[in-house]
C-alpha cells in the first residue's frame, strides 16, 4: 500500500527531468477555470447595475481587504490583490482534491497542495515578497532587525525568520496530505474485508468517507485562510517601525 502514498505519475521532460504530471496538469486546470470564472464575473462590471455574481465576489474581496487594512494600516492597500489571489488560489487547490479523479489512473487529479512541490514555492514566494518589500521600504537597515533586542540573540532571530516559511509550508502540506492519506487507509480497510468477531469492520468503515469529505472541505478552507492571514501578519511584523 505504501507505493500509493506520495506516489505521482511522472513525465520525463528533456531539461527538467522527471516531474509530477498530475500536480502540474491539475494546477493548470485550476488556473484556467479560475481565470475564466473570474473573467466572467469581471464582465458584469461593464454595466452600471450591480449583479449578484459581483456582490458575491465583492464579499470575499472586501473581507480580505478589511483584514489587510486592519492589520497593515492604510499602507497595506497595494498588497490586497496579492493576498486575495493567494487565498483564492490555495482554497481552489485544496478543494480540488474532493473531485473523484485520482483513482482513474490518469495523469490528473488529487489535490496539488498534497504535493510538496506546490506548497514550498508558495511559502518561498511569501517569504521573498516580505523580504523584498521590507528592504524596499527600509533599506539596508531592515536587516539589522536580527540584532534588535541585543546582538547575542542573532541565531535565535535568524532561526525564527527561517522557520516561518517552513512552518507555513508544513502546516498546509500536512493538513491536506493527511486528508488524502485517510482515504487510502479507509480504502485499504474496506478492501481487506476485516471482521472482528461478528462486527464487520469493513462495512462499518464504509460510512466514514463522507464524513472525511466534510472534514477535508472544512480543513481546506481553514488552512487557506490561515496561510493568508499568517502571511499578512508576517508582512506587518516586517514593516513595523518599532521592534
Amino acid at each position, binding site marked *: 500500500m*505504501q507505493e500509493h*502514498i506520495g506516489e505521482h505519475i511522472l513525465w520525463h521532460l528533456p531539461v527538467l527531468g522527471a516531474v509530477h504530471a498530475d500536480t502540474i496538469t491539475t494546477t493548470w486546470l485550476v488556473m484556467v477555470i479560475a481565470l475564466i470564472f473570474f473573467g466572467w464575473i469581471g464582465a458584469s462590471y461593464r454595466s452600471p447595475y450591480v449583479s449578484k455574481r459581483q456582490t458575491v465576489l465583492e464579499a470575499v474581496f472586501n473581507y480580505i481587504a478589511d483584514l489587510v487594512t486592519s492589520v497593515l494600516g492604510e499602507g497595506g492597500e497595494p498588497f490586497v490583490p496579492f493576498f486575495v489571489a493567494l487565498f483564492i488560489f490555495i482554497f481552489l487547490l485544496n478543494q480540488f482534491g474532493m473531485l473523484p479523479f485520482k483513482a482513474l489512473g490518469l495523469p490528473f487529479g488529487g489535490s496539488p497542495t498534497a504535493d510538496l512541490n506546490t506548497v514550498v514555492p508558495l511559502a518561498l514566494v511569501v517569504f521573498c515578497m516580505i523580504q523584498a518589500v521590507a528592504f524596499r521600504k527600509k533599506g539596508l537597515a531592515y536587516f539589522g532587525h536580527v540584532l534588535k533586542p541585543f546582538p547575542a540573540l542573532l541565531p535565535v532571530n535568524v532561526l525564527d525568520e527561517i522557520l516561518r516559511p517552513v512552518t507555513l509550508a508544513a502546516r498546509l502540506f500536512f493538513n491536506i496530505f493527511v486528508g488524502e492519506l485517510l482515504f487510502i487507509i479507509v480504502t485499504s480497510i474496506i478492501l481487506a474485508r476485516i471482521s472482528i468477531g461478528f462486527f464487520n469492520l469493513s462495512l462499518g468503515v464504509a460510512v466514514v468517507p463522507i464524513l472525511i469529505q466534510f472534514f477535508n472541505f472544512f480543513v481546506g478552507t*481553514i488552512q487557506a485562510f490561515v496561510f493568508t492571514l499568517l502571511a499578512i501578519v508576517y508582512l506587518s511584523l516586517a514593516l513595523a517601525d518599532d521592534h
Partner: protein
Amino acid sequence: MNPEALIAAAAVLCFGIVISGVAFGSAVGDGIVASKAVESIARQPEARPNIFLFMFLGVGVLEAVPFIAIALSFYILLVVAKVPQIITSLVK
C-alpha cells in the same frame, strides 16, 4: 524471537503512543481556545465575527504540529517498518 515480529510490534506501539498523544494534546488545546472564545463572546457579543476569526486562526495554527505527527507516524508504520507486509508474511 523473530526480528521482523519485534520490528512490527515496536512500530505498532509507536504508532499508538503518537496518535494518542496527538489526540490528547490537540483536544486539550482546541478546548482551551474554544472555551476562551465562547467566554469572550458572552462578555461582548458585538465582537463575535472578530472572535470567530481569531478562534479559527488559533485552531489552524495549533493543528499544524498534530497533523505533522500523524503523517510521520503513518510513515513509520507503513514505509519504515512496512507492517502490513510483515504481518501478512508472518500469518502465512
